[in-house]
C-alpha cells in the first residue's frame, strides 16, 4: 500500500451550523447512500442494466458542495452521477425511473445511469467520457459571466460546480479549462473527487504530481485540499469558493480526498485495492462521522437520526415502486428528441 496522504485537519468550531442546516446535510448524504445501496440490489437482481457506478463513501463531497449552492446554480457531473443529481434536487423517483429505462426517468429513459439530465434542476448532465463534462460546465459558467458583463444582467451571478475524479486530472480538458476559467475569471468550482483509483490505475501510478490541488497554482487559481470524508470541511471550503465565484473573483480548484466503498462499477471485480487500504477508509465513513458530530454537538438525538433514515428509506422504496410501475418509452418515439423541433 502506498503511503496515505495526511488528511488536512478541519476544526468544525470555525464553521458553526444550525440544527436545520445540519439535518439538510445529513438527509442528503443518507439519501445518497441508501439510494446507491438500492441500486446495487436492483443491479444484482438483474433489474438494472449497463454500467452502474456507485457513489458510496463519497457522499460528503456531493452534499458539502451542492448544498452550498443556490437552486439556480449549475451542477455538472460524470458517469458517477446519481448522487450529484439527487443533491441537485432531481427527485429520487425520476433518477430511479431513469435507471430502469422508463419514460418517467429524468432523461426519459434515453440516457441511463451515466447520462442523468434535468434542465429544471440545472443538472447539466452525467457525462460518460473522462473530462468531457468540464468544458460543458465551463460553458455554463461562461454564460453567467456573459449575461452579467456582456448583457448587463446584474442578477446573473450563478455559479457552476464541475465534478470529476483524480483520473481526469491527467486529461487535457482539465488543464485547458482551468486555463480558460482563470483567464476569464469564470464563476466555477472544479471539484476533484480524488478517490485514489481510476478503475485499476492507482493515482500515484498515473500522475507526476499526486497533489492535484497544487495544479491550480500555475494558473494563478486558488487550489485547496480538503478531507472529503468530512462534510463540514467540504461545506466550508465550498462556501468560500462559491462566495468568491459569485463575487466575480473567479474559479477555485478543490481537491476532496475521498474513497469509493465499492468497485469502480458494479461490474468491477475490485481486485487491486488492498484490504488494509479499504479498512482505513471505511473507518472514515462520512455519514457515521457526521452522525457522531451531530450527537456530540447535541444537534439531534439518536431517535431523530433513525426517523430520518426510516423516512428516506421509505422514499426510496416509493421511488422504486414508481420506477417499476412506470411505462417504458413508446417505440413510436424512437426518433423523438434528435432535433430541437421533436
Amino acid at each position: 500500500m502506498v503511503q496515505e496522504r495526511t488528511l488536512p485537519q478541519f476544526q468544525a468550531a470555525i464553521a458553526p451550523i444550525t440544527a436545520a442546516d445540519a439535518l439538510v446535510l445529513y438527509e442528503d448524504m443518507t439519501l445518497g447512500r441508501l439510494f446507491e445501496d438500492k441500486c446495487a440490489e436492483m443491479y444484482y437482481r438483474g433489474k438494472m442494466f449497463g454500467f452502474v457506478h456507485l457513489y458510496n463513501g463519497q457522499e460528503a463531497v456531493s452534499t458539502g458542495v451542492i448544498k452550498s449552492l443556490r437552486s439556480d446554480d449549475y451542477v455538472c457531473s460524470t458517469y458517477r452521477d446519481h448522487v450529484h443529481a439527487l443533491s441537485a434536487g432531481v427527485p429520487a423517483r425520476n433518477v430511479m425511473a431513469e435507471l430502469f429505462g422508463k419514460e418517467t426517468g429524468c432523461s426519459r429513459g434515453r440516457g441511463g445511469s451515466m447520462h442523468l439530465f434535468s434542465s429544471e434542476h440545472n443538472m447539466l448532465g452525467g457525462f460518460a467520457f473522462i473530462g468531457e463534462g468540464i468544458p460543458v460546465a465551463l460553458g455554463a459558467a461562461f454564460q453567467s459571466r456573459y449575461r452579467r458583463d456582456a448583457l448587463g444582467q446584474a442578477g446573473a451571478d450563478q455559479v457552476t460546480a464541475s465534478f470529476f475524479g483524480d483520473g481526469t486530472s491527467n486529461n487535457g480538458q482539465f488543464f485547458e479549462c482551468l486555463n480558460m476559467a482563470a483567464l476569464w475569471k469564470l464563476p466555477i468550482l472544479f471539484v476533484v473527487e480524488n478517490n485514489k483509483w481510476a478503475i485499476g490505475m492507482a493515482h500515484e501510478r498515473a500522475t507526476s504530481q499526486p497533489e492535484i490541488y497544487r495544479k491550480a497554482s500555475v494558473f494563478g487559481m486558488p487550489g485547496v485540499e480538503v478531507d472529503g470524508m468530512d462534510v463540514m470541511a467540504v461545506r466550508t471550503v465550498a462556501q468560500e469558493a462559491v462566495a468568491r465565484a459569485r463575487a466575480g473573483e473567479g474559479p477555485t480548484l478543490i481537491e476532496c480526498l475521498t474513497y469509493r466503498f465499492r468497485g469502480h462499477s458494479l461490474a468491477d471485480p475490485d481486485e487491486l485495492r488492498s484490504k488494509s487500504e479499504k479498512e482505513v477508509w471505511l473507518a472514515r465513513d462520512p455519514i457515521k462521522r457526521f452522525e457522531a458530530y451531530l450527537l456530540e454537538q447535541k444537534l439531534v438525538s439518536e431517535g431523530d437520526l433513525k426517523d430520518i433514515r426510516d423516512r428516506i428509506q421509505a422514499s426510496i422504496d416509493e421511488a422504486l415502486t414508481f420506477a417499476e410501475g412506470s411505462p417504458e418509452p413508446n417505440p413510436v418515439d424512437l426518433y423523438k428528441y434528435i432535433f430541437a423541433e421533436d
Partner: protein
Amino acid sequence: MAETLMFNALREAIDEEMARDETVFVLGEDVGHYGGSYKVTKDLHQKYGDLRVLDTPIAENSFTGMAVGAAMTGLRPIIEGMNMGFLLLAFNQIANNAGMLRYTSGGNFKIPMVIRGPGGVGRQLGAEHSQRLEAYFQAVPGLKIVACSTAYNAKGLLKAAIRDDNPVLFFEHVLLYNLKDDLPNHEYILPLDKAEVVRPGKDVTILTYSRMRHHVMQATKGLEAKGIDPEVIDLISLKPLDFETIGASIRKTHRVIVVEECMKTGGIGAEIIASINDRLFDELDAPVLRLSSQDIPTPYNGKLESLTIVQPKQIEAAVEKMLALKV
C-alpha cells in the same frame, strides 16, 4: 444590390444576427483582434466587445465543449474552426455532446450552435489542412451539415444556421472566399434543408456541393456545346439530404452522377447512392456514377494535388460516357 465577396457576405450574416439577438456570440482562434483567418469576423470585436467575439486559447475540444455548455444554458454560440480540419481535435465534443446530448437527455436540453469555417482542398496546403470532414461527421446523429458555395447562399444559409435551434456544421470552402455576388439590400434567409437547382436540364442529374459545384458548372459549358442538357443540383444540405429535390430530378433524367470533393470511401456520395438505391432504384436507367477525390492524404505537390480532386474534364467525360450507355 451590392457586390459582395463571400467572406464579407458571411461577415454580414454574423453581424446582422449578433445585432438582432444578443445571445449570439462568436468564439474561436483569432476571431477577435485578428479578425479571423479569412477575415470573416473582421472588426466585429470592436463593435460587440471581447466577450461576444471571444478569442480562445488553442484548445479545440475544450472550447467546443464550452460552446455546448453555453448553448445548453441559453446562448447561441458560433464557433469558427480556423481550419475545419482542426475540428478533428474536437471530435468528441461535436459527436457526443453537440450531436447526441439532446437525445441522450431525453429532450432536456437543446444545443443551438453553429460550427463554421474553411474546409476542402486549397492550393498546396498539405494533407492536414485539406480535409473534408463533412464525410467523417455525417454519421453523427443530431447534427445538421450544410455546405455553402456562393456569396449569396453563404449569407442566407449562415443566418438560417444561426437561428436554427440545432447544432449545424457549416462548411465554407477555402478557395471560395473571394467569389462575388450582388446581394440584395434587404434581409434574406435561405432554408437549410433545401437543395438548389443550379441549372435545370433533362439528360442527367449531377449532384454536387461546395467548390465542386463550380467545377461542374465549368464542365456544363463543354457539354452544352455538344448538345447535352444536364441538370445540376447543389445539395447545400449534406445532412439531411433533400430527397424531394433529388427525387424530382431523378424522375426526370433517370441518370445520376455525384461529384464530390470528399474521399470516395465513406463519402457523401456513398450515402447518396445507398439512399437512391433504397428510394429510387426503379427510376434509374444506369448505375449511379461517383466522381470523388482519391482515397489518399492530399499531396503537397501541385500536380499530384490536382490529380487528387475531380477536374471539369473528368466530369464532362463521365457524363458523355453515361449518356452513351443505351438502355
